[in-house]
């Protein structure tokens, strides 16, 4: 593991996101992404991980807003910037890959034009030069016959190929931060492996900061350096991937790991350790620890107040009054 540089690439401080004036969907979120580092942001549906990504990009829907906290990219507070200034960052210093490659591309524009467009928006490039560069980019994301695919419309390409195009658009202007929101969830497992490998190598080559959002702990283990586990709009545990997954401290992280199907029931006769109940919707989140109603280790004090973020070893924190697992 490389030693941490002084200023992080992305620093999210106490971020809350609200729907209008209603209850917060995401509350008091803290995490950092350093240069050249892959951070896995993990959680189940409705935990606010995608909202967080959109908030960083400044792409939240109009009825949603960041109500407190800051998002700093390379030392600039993005929440203080207007849409015009943000536009200079988007696609340039930070870029994003979405979950659905089928709908992420404009159906009536050729894939080439969609790559060229981002180059010309942020770089002073002539048409011919941008086209040359776009074909290079398509080659870089390993699209076969890139020069021919350049003229194809998205519907001609398979899901995996379309996701490669989306990645080519994202890396076109050499961003410092790349956010990938469930980039492989819609893909088959063999294609997922190809895309993950591509992301990994791109990240390594360009020293990118990669924020990988996923529900799949396996993906995080394979790709990420650090992990941030979210539950019901809040970070419950974070730290180095191997440390967290080998020895989870928060009962939710431990529960997620145990719930994942492993082995064979007919051979070993073991039942999966499920987590009872379901994630509460934002308006009915408990007042105490968010996980308390579903937690097997809950005690009386868990109901009283949200547990604070407490350090649990080097570069590691957990929000729990009664952490499980071995102390570090």
């Amino acid at each position, binding site marked *: 593991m490389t030693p941490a540089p002084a200023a992080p690439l992305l620093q999210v401080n106490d971020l809350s996101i609200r729907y209008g004036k209603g209850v917060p969907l995401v509350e008091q979120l803290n995490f950092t992404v350093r240069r050249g580092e892959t951070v896995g942001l993990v959680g189940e549906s409705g935990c606010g991980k995608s909202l967080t990504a959109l908030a960083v990009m400044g792409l939240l829907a109009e009825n949603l807003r960041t109500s407190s906290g800051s998002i700093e990219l390379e030392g600039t507070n993005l929440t203080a910037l207007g849409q015009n200034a943000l536009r200079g960052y988007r696609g340039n210093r930070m870029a994003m890959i979405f979950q659905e490659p089928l709908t992420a591309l404009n159906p009536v524009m050729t894939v080439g034009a969609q790559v060229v467009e981002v180059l010309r928006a942020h770089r002073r490039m002539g048409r011919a030069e941008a086209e040359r560069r776009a074909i290079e980019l398509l080659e870089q994301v390993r699209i076969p016959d890139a020069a021919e695919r350049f003229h194809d419309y998205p519907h001609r390409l398979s899901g*995996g190929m379309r996701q490669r195009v989306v990645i080519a658009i994202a890396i076109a202007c050499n961003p410092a931060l790349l956010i990938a929101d469930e980039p492989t969830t819609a893909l088959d497992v063999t*294609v*997922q*492996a190809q895309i993950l*490998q591509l992301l990994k190598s791109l990240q390594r080559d360009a020293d990118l900061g990669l924020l990988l959002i996923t529900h799949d*702990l396996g993906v995080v283990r*394979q790709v990420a350096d650090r992990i941030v586990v979210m539950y019901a709009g809040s970070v419950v545990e974070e730290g180095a991937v191997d440390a967290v997954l080998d020895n989870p401290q928060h009962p939710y992280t431990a529960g997620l790991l145990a*719930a994942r199907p492993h082995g*064979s029931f007919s051979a070993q006769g073991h039942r999966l350790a499920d987590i009872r109940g379901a994630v509460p919707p934002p308006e009915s989140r408990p007042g105490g620890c968010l996980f308390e109603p579903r937690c097997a280790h809950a005690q009386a004090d868990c109901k009283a107040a949200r547990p604070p973020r407490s350090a649990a070893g080097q570069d590691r924190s957990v929000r729990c009054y009664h952490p499980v697992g071995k102390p570090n």
Partner: protein
Amino acid sequence: MTPVLQTNDLKVHHKTPRGMLRAVDGVSIEVAPGETLGLVGESGCGKSTLARCIVGISRPTEGSLALGGVVQQGRRAERFDRARAVQMVFQDPSGSLNPRLSVGRIIEEPLMVHRIGSRMERRKRVEEIAGQVGLAPYHLARYPHELSGGQRQRVSIARALTLEPGLLVCDEAVSALDVSVQAQVLNLFLDLQQRLGLAYLFISHDLAVVRYIAHRIAVMYLGRIVEVGPAEAVWSRRNHPYTRALVDAIPDEMTRQDQANLLEGDVPSPVNPPSGCAFRTRCPHARARCAEDVPLLRDRGGGLLVACHFAEEIEAGHEAADRAPVALRVVSGGT
């Protein structure tokens, strides 16, 4: 014992503007009472078409299909008997329940269609089944949109159980659920199997899920079964290169692994499949013979059937690779 499901060289072909789509192209499978057969494959491999054919939504183009020993003729009059032999649980917990009906009514509907019991008797039965799948009586008055994804899937299961079928076809039944809820539903499936002696045809793209729940696993690629056998044998012996690629592609959350055996490209179109072995275009072991002869399922011992000309070689090579020190494995990519 008579198998609850037996298909013999079943084919389902559809006409498309670009030619004949061979969604299912000669599948022979068997499910014994109380057994779980897991069916895995990537999107477009024909697993859902096969499921729809088994439950009677679409008709086979060729081949035969027997439920509980009764060969299905595809007549409309069969539909009541078929409904009592096989039911289905779907993937999407929001689309599989009629939004305008209460949960109680949704579960009761099969009994109403089959004119079973009086109103009171049906209501009692609904409550009983709801209890079995872990729904409380107050849930019965709710509407689908008032329930969570996991609860909706329980409603689907309850509805499928009212006619007491011997076989449940589960098409990606846990794929749309979050991991913590997925585990609840998987446990429920196991409980119900033990209590009711149900057989499952458990279809999923997720090999880890199938391995956990199934007694036997069948691997499907472009409309055909390429490997079938006892779950652990399929998982650990991986005689077919496709099975091997599937297993290798699963990101393991327990350990970091090197992904040495990545498949190239995408699944070819089932409208125009490659000659010979359909997998050869992506297979690292493909040779000239693969383009000519269609490999048939061969017995590899221990109940494992594999459709690959070079299964012996691959199994041997696979063992050698597992024995080799990790440092020697080539890490591909990373240019």
